[in-house]
């Protein structure tokens, strides 16, 4: 009797989890599959099953799959430019964020004065503010000094608005590293910076990588700030897709947009595949210490 009821219970749990996994992943597989079809299949008026079999795609291209959307967006619409821009922005944002972030967070974790607390609290308030609220403050000086629209400006802005987050995350990683470690290094004659560079950073490496992943995601996923700060020809992928969407609904190139959306998701997919454990530890880090 007991056995069957617990069996039934675990069937319930398994089906609940299966439903969640389905809801979480199905939209991605569906869109990925559909991106190799023509519009009449992807948006099917007559029969939704066309999107699976690719009936109209077969009629047009004599094959159930077509790379026409991908060719259109990457070659014709020169999406690779945005891809390169995104790569440049993400690379430099992660590099700079981590460099200045580890220095700052290390200092914050090794100091007990009152101003440490106030700096952390200010960072928390900055972290809570929607970044878009700052853009009105950026535009007049950027136009005035003629630095609006270019990648370096956007990189510095993204680094700065992500600093509060980076500081908090690295701060909690540094707190886990015993202070005795730097003390003993200093006893051996290291300066504070040498202790940081040669003793702490090697131990901190996993935490730095995790924080780097999150800085990457913040830079890669940003839409509001990058689309306000970059000129048309310097757009990164996400603002490019948004701008492209506005025109496709009228031009009928919707499959280009579908291909672009899938292309921009692939790097994230790979990221999760390789760094799943790190992402999970990053998400829980703040929580465990908080």
């Amino acid at each position, binding site marked *: 009797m007991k056995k069957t009821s617990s069996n039934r219970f*675990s069937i319930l749990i398994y089906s609940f*989890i299966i439903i969640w996994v389905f809801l979480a992943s199905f939209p991605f597989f569906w869109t990925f599959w559909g991106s190799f079809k023509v519009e009449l299949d992807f948006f099917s008026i007559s029969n939704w099953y066309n999107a699976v079999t690719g009936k109209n795609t077969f009629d047009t291209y004599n094959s159930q799959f077509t790379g026409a959307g991908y060719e259109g967006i990457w070659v014709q619409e020169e999406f690779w430019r945005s891809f390169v821009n995104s790569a440049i922005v993400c690379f430099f944002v992660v590099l700079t964020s981590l460099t200045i972030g580890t*220095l700052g967070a290390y200092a914050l974790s*090794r100091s007990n004065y009152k101003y440490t607390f106030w700096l952390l609290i200010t960072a*928390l308030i900055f972290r809570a503010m929607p970044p878009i*609220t700052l853009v009105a403050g*950026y535009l007049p000086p950027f136009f005035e000094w003629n630095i609006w629209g270019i990648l370096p400006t956007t990189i510095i802005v993204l680094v700065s608005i992500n600093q509060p987050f980076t500081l908090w995350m690295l701060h909690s990683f540094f707190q886990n590293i015993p202070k005795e470690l730097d003390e003993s290094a200093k006893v051996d004659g290291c300066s504070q*910076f040498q202790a940081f560079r040669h003793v702490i950073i090697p131990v901190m490496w996993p935490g730095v990588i995790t924080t780097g992943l999150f800085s990457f995601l913040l830079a890669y996923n940003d839409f509001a700030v990058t689309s306000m700060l970059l000129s048309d020809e310097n757009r990164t992928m996400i603002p490019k*897709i948004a701008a492209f969407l506005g025109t496709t609904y009228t031009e009928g190139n919707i499959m280009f947009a579908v291909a672009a959306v899938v292309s921009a998701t692939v790097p994230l997919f790979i990221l999760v595949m390789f760094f799943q454990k790190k992402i999970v530890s990053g*998400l829980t880090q703040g929580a465990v210490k908080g």
Partner: protein
Amino acid sequence: MKHRTFFWFILPTFLAMLIFIFLPIISVILQSVHTSHENVLITVENCDPFGCKKVTSIDQNATKNLNQSKPLGKFVGLDIYFDRGHLAIEKFKLLWNNSENIFSFIESLSNLPFYKAVFFTLTFTFTVTPIMLLLGLLIALGVNSISKKLRGIVIFFSLLPMIVTPLIGSIILFWMIDSRGIIGNLIQWLLNDPNLSLKASTSLTWIMLIVYGVWHAIPFSFIVFYAGLQTVPRDQLESAKIDGANKFEEIIYIIIPHLMPLITFVTLMQLMDNFRVFEPIVGFSAEAHATSLSWIIFNDLGGETRQLSAAATSSILTIIGVIILLSPVLLRTWKDFKLKK
């Protein structure tokens, strides 16, 4: 750490935040109390053989000089805060006096652009947050009791909705709920209404955005709670079992109290993140039915006419909202810090 060493370590990040967060806030505050200069007009009398005419034209030089001498514009105090696009004080008073009850008051208030955005932002924040907490907890409990071999793959797929770019995630769902998309088709078939469009109705749009918000946010609470579940003390669970507690009582009396700090943490992060809701409104092209505070700012900033003063005012009001939202947490952190000392 010595003050001197501390100073050099903190300097780069401090400067970055000072120049690109603190100073912009000051600039935004200043812009919100100024408006751009009106053009200086000049009236000249043009006389020709047929008589004299008075012609009014823009004095280009005077306008330029004015803009250069006072680049911020004309000081208007809190006028922009009270204007129709923001707090709409006059309209507010009028509606307050003329409305029969609180519901009709709120309804007519929600026709004003700023209040419309405030209502949606608050509704979104305070529906998505509890729903994602509950579902995240249920999924964490579920995953915690399935076979260990399956957990990795479940976590992999669970991360996707959160890791995907918000704009892209909402576009993907938007295409699926299109009346020609698979979910749109399914709903039409279920309700037996071939003309049903989720985009056409305000309440359906709100539900759609909230469903997206929950979908996007569940992974976060799930992962955090799942990690928390690994640290639930075994002996407490054992002794509860011996005392005859069932699964449900176990959850209520042991697991939830143990997870309480994590629940506070996730709630705080979610309140902050949901309050800035923006991308789904763009992704779902929902601005006709739902706008948010971030969306108004974005909308004022964009386009041909960059309305910086209007955007700055909305920004300041949004920041005030965030601070109100955060104040309990800030107070608690302050108390904790004092205790530590």
